[in-house]
């Protein structure tokens, strides 16, 4: 069993690792240094770390100004307050001018847990996806997140990086020759009956679900879409054309996120039956991450069950 680690740990570790070789790297936070793990960078490079206090809108503007003056900036806070509260600052001060700012959003999705719906951001991917030129990366595990931080830091354009609070299995760590490329999905398991496309925390679940299905003689192909935008349409369509049906799984509203992105790609390029699993356009609530994921159907067993239903659509 792979070691479990939260992807936000990779944000802190990744920034700290990059600090020495990237003197232009500046990190901001809005009173969430410790919990976003931006603190790891602060301890190593205090002169290039600025706490903006609880003012996310201003932080995005400051990030834009720093970037316009040549800095590579990571602006860190919770997904809710980044994509949600500061959406318009991200749109007008960062995305429209195409500035070199990385919006590093932690505590995304319902796995935030006990804090409840006010803090469970299930809309961020949808919001960010509508901004021209915005790259959106939602890494599946610690190792992938570490690579994502570096790859986005080296990109000169705006990026939205999504990290989770909960510990998830670090599957990529055990993968020989793991290679991360922005915009390139990863075929994790080959199959012929159905394509399961997952992102972030649901990737390991999708792999477990595929194993459950295999025990029943069903062959599921599993794809990890760590970059929701730009979407790897070629990989998705190639797989969909082979298996004939697709299921998407994400810790996000099924409206606007991965499910929507895949639906758009499929219906334009290779129309086939699609099932979207995620938050079914409803609010979250308080509870442990595990309890919430179970209640809202984001477990390997649920994905396996939904996948069988997806295959049934194909036959209908």
């Amino acid at each position, binding site marked *: 069993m792979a070691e479990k680690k939260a992807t936000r740990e990779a944000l802190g570790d990744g920034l700290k690792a990059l600090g020495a070789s990237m003197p232009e790297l500046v990190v901001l936070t809005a009173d969430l240094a410790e919990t976003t793990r931006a603190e790891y960078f602060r301890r190593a490079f205090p002169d290039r770390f600025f706490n903006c206090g609880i003012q996310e809108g201003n932080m*995005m503007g400051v990030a*834009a*100004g720093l970037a316009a*003056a040549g*800095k590579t900036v990571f602006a860190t806070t919770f997904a809710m307050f980044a994509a949600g509260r500061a959406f318009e600052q991200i749109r*007008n001060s960062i995305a429209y001018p*195409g500035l070199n700012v990385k919006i590093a959003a932690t505590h995304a999705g319902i796995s935030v847990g006990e804090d409840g719906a006010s803090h469970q951001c299930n809309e961020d991917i949808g919001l960010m996806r509508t901004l021209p030129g915005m790259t959106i990366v939602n890494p599946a595990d610690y190792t992938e997140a570490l690579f994502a931080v570096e790859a986005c830091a080296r990109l000169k354009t705006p990026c939205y990086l999504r990290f989770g609070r909960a510990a998830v299995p670090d599957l990529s760590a055990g993968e020989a020759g793991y290679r991360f490329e922005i915009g390139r999905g990863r075929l994790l398991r080959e199959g012929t009956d159905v394509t399961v496309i997952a992102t972030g925390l649901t990737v390991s679940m999708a792999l477990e679900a595929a194993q459950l299905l295999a025990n029943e003689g069903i062959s599921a192909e599993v794809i990890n879409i760590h970059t929701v935008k730009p979407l790897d349409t070629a990989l998705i369509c190639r797989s969909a054309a082979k298996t004939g049906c697709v299921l998407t799984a994400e810790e996000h509203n099924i409206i606007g996120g991965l499910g929507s992105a895949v639906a758009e790609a499929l219906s334009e390029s290779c129309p086939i039956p699609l099932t979207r699993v995620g938050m079914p356009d409803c609010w979250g609530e308080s509870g442990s991450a595990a309890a919430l994921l179970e209640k809202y159907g984001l477990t390997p067993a649920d994905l396996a069950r939904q996948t069988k239903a997806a295959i049934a659509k194909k036959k209908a």
Partner: protein
Amino acid sequence: MEASVRKELTELARKVRVGVIESTNAARCGHPGGSLSIAEIVAWLYFREMRVDPKAPQDPDRDRFVLSKGHTAPALYTALALRGFFPWEELFTLRKLGTRLQGHPSMHALDCIDMSTGSLGQGVSTACGMALAAKLDRKDYRVYTVIGDGESEEGQVWEAAMFAAHYRLDNLCAVFDLNGLQIDGEVKKVMNIAPMADKLRAFGWEVCEINGHDFDEIERAFETARQTKGRPTAILSHSVKGKGVSFMENQAAWHGKATSPEEYEKAMAELTAAREA
């Protein structure tokens, strides 16, 4: 200030007003009122204050300008044209398809724009980021921003005001263009922002209050800003919306519309007479 310098600057401000009327008239839309109220300020910034070079608009050591009240771009564009960043004729492309002179300033469309603006309340924050970068890089460039008084109702302006004082950004100078009017009427009636000087001092800023159409006062205020150490400076520039065109002065209705052919002739006649005066 020497009389010849004052005369030269006064003529530049008049030309800024001509450019504002010409460009918005050609566009058949735009925001002349708040552009006319900052004519002296942008003339001072681009001809006396800022270290800029039309041949090297992206010079990393240049002073930066953020027009937070981005809708008054016609004033900025005219100052840039007068300073030699692009030809005067280009002002007539304002707001037209394919133009570099977007309705609100775009740094990607036009390389001498230091920050894209337009959505009110964001420019002080971006100016803070530039000022912070200068500090980090131990560079001596300065950052200027112009904010509207109606715009100062936006909470983000005060977030940024707090930030600038907290990080002691003495290389930042924010001009608040207090023309007293916003789209829906008088600022004090729509949402009173007074007392601005007390508020900004309480936030930790150096504050100068001036007549924004008087170059002697403008000179002294910017000198104070340059001399102030350890804190940012706010210049409260009391101005007249629509200044220089009689029928636009102090009229909120001239916030966001262009002249009719008759109004254009009248405005140009007044501005021409001002040169001969």
